[in-house]
């Protein structure tokens, strides 16, 4: 007997497993007795984490390296495997942070875990989408879940505001994406990325017949994506959403969707529209510049921790857009390396912020970090190392990735971008170091010291892993270089 998609399902085994696992969890949650929800969320976190681990193993051991699935709607290649594994790891870390956070904030809804797993699934599908329709469906799938997660604390005004803002602006940018995609479809008659790439082969920027409206379509597409990764002229929503959402969800927002969206950006612009390099290079050049500048100057005026982290992530997005603007394989490799290091640093920063919880609740303002050195010296050292690494001080992981990206920019003769990148990284040093000053060199007044609550084992482990990761990636970076090289090779 002949099946049309016989071998396609083999390529989709990790996603299918994740889907089945989360369906079972959903059934379990609905069936479980009312009134004991807090037990159940912990069960679900354990089982969901196990599910993610198995998915990760299935993904790594999959023998199918390069494949186009489901009638040209999905693709598996080196980049998709790399980014999918990063997405799985980051969700796993978010689960680790949630073990203590959910009971502390009295979030009893088990749907939290289900929605996170669904969002992970959709991000994985987004990374491997190969067609504008599947891309749009995956993006909608992901954002619907994330809107709900942002508004999770219904009785908190900030959280509702975050959910609404995210929803309205997300729907707006999806509209841009659809408009750009439909313009391109109207001009070319295809929605498949590879078909677009083949169609445009050799079409230079001088070809008047196809240029104008394709570039308008490209502009709309890139605006939509830049909205979603919160790059600078379109970053207004992100500090509000990051502040309002529950902190573990903020951590998720600042890691996993960015991983997937950079994968999508690379796939669309390197596979579909590479022959229009000189048109979209300018867009990314401008946005990368603006993000670096806004990220570092905007963060100077912040007084709240989560807003500061939001601005710092805007700055990091700017550095990663440098790699995209180069249009070279080296730039791609730099982006992948940066994404890996960014993931580790962000997880570390958020786990420190979550560990600083006192009896009155979690820390909101930067002043709550005051004299952290006296409260918990180890946490203070960890946070300082992370901040140094985010600023790009040499013997740490953050330096390595920035260094690589700037060199890629220099090789692609984007000198101004590299120089301004270094300058804005110096400015960002200023506020990172002001935080360190706040933690160490502040006059101690014994009255204000509130003891922080004990830290649970999962968070301790996460802190340790990410701390040593930041310290030791610099010592032996060759496996990570090779990983990012292998991921970037799928576009050569």
């Amino acid at each position, binding site marked *: 007997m002949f099946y049309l998609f016989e071998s396609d399902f083999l390529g989709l085994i990790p996603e299918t497993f994740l889907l089945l696992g989360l369906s079972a969890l959903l059934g379990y949650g609905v069936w479980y007795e009312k009134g004991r929800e807090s037990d159940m969320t912990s069960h679900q976190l354990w089982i969901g984490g196990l599910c993610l681990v198995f998915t990760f193993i299935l993904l790594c051991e999959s023998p199918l390296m390069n494949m186009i699935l489901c009638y040209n709607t999905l693709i598996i290649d080196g980049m998709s495997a790399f980014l999918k594994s990063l997405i799985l790891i980051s969700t796993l870390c978010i689960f680790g942070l949630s073990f203590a956070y959910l009971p502390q904030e009295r979030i009893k809804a088990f749907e939290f875990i289900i929605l996170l797993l669904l969002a992970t699934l959709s991000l994985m599908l987004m990374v491997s989408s190969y067609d504008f329709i599947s891309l749009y469906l995956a993006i909608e799938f992901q954002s619907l879940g994330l809107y709900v997660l942002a508004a999770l604390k219904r009785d908190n005004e900030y959280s509702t505001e975050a959910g609404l803002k995210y929803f309205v602006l997300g729907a707006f940018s999806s509209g841009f994406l659809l408009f750009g995609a439909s313009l391109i479809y109207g001009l070319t008659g295809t929605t498949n990325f590879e078909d677009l790439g083949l169609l445009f082969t050799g079409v230079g920027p001088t070809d008047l017949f196809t240029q104008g409206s394709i570039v308008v379509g490209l502009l709309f597409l890139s605006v939509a994506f830049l909205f979603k990764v919160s790059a600078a002229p379109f970053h207004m929503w992100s500090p509000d959403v990051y502040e309002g959402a529950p902190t573990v969800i903020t951590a998720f927002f600042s890691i996993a969707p960015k991983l997937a969206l950079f994968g999508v950006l690379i796939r669309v612009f390197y596979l579909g529209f590479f022959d229009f390099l000189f048109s979209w290079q300018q867009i990314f050049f401008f946005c990368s510049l603006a993000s670096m500048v806004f990220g570092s100057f905007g963060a100077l005026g912040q007084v709240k921790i989560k807003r500061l982290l939001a601005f710092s992530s805007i700055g990091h997005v700017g550095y990663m857009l440098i790699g995209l603007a180069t249009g070279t394989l080296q730039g791609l490799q730099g982006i992948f390396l940066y994404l890996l290091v960014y993931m580790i640093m962000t997880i570390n920063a958020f786990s420190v912020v979550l560990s600083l919880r006192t009896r009155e609740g979690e820390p909101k303002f930067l002043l709550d970090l005051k004299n952290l050195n006296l409260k918990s010296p180890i946490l203070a050292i960890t946070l300082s190392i992370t901040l140094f690494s985010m600023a790009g001080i040499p013997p740490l992981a953050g330096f390595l990735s920035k260094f690589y990206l700037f060199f890629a920019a220099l090789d692609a003769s984007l000198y101004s971008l590299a120089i301004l990148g270094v300058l804005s990284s110096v400015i960002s040093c200023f506020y990172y170091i002001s935080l360190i000053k706040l933690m160490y060199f502040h006059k101690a007044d014994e009255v204000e010291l509130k003891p922080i609550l004990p830290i649970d*084992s999962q968070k301790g482990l996460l802190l340790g892993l990410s701390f040593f990761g930041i310290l030791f990636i610099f010592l032996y970076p060759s496996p990570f270089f090779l990983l990012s090289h292998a991921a970037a090779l799928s576009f*050569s």
Partner: protein
Amino acid sequence: MGASAALFGGALGFMTQVYSNAVRRLPVLRKPWEHGIAGLVGAGFGVGVINMEERLRVYIEEQTQARSRK
């Protein structure tokens, strides 16, 4: 190479467990079997990284040659 990777990974795992206990303000060597497990996992990780590196080298070599032949 393999032995030193295992040693280094093991030390890293052990240190992670020590750090984790220290940050939680527990006695640093509480439940020593946990440290043992962490060390073993770390050693496995180190060896895994070395193996992965080797595989990736081969893969990149293959792919680059396949592309240059085209």
